[in-house]
């Protein structure tokens, strides 16, 4: 897992390795699972409308199937340029 911007700040780390159970098949389910296991994650993920995700560096919707990714990133909407 990679976290950026205020998601990173609220969780308190930029990256971690996790092993979700097999019933976690979407990004949204992964977020639910992480939030259930930690108050910091729950605080970072409280407003799902303000979360975006990338699976193996490809930007996806939260309901996208997860597959067996090497890298999942969760972050706020981008504000670059």
């Amino acid at each position: 897992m990679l976290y950026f911007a205020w998601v990173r700040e609220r969780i308190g780390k930029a990256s971690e390795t996790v092993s979700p159970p097999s019933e976690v098949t979407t990004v949204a389910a992964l977020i639910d699972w992480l939030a259930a296991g930690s108050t910091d994650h729950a605080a970072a993920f409280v407003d799902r409308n303000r979360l975006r995700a990338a699976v193996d560096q490809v930007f996806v919707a939260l309901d996208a199937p997860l597959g067996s990714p090497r890298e999942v990133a969760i972050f706020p909407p981008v504000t670059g340029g």
Partner: protein
Amino acid sequence: MMTVTVSEATIDAGTEFAAISASGAGGIATFVGLVRSDDGVAILSLEHYPGATEAALRALADTAIARWDLIGARITHRVGDMHPGEIVVFVGTAARHRGAALEACAFLIDRLKTEAPFWKKETRGGETSWVEPRDSDDVAAARWKA
């Protein structure tokens, strides 16, 4: 010729311009975004997603080069801490004719704002806050849907 750079180094407009204008094109359009010096921001910090950022910018440049038959495209984006008056992003396009260069330049900066994984944090008056996304950026990016 396409060049995409994301780094903490200061961006020098003259250097950037020289690089994009070396293509022999008839028209060069550029857009430069700076840290504004008129709204009280002392430090602008840019975080990004290493690897994914460069890939997103290269994909945008590829799209623009194909769509407008560009001779060159150059995107240079700074990350880390910046101060008022410093350059955040340089976008340059080179084409045989000005319409292509100008449109492609607007396309690149509009889409970069909504598609490349950068996040801005502002420090003003000792307070730090993450910049909220603007609806107007989505509107600007959407007008390029082919």
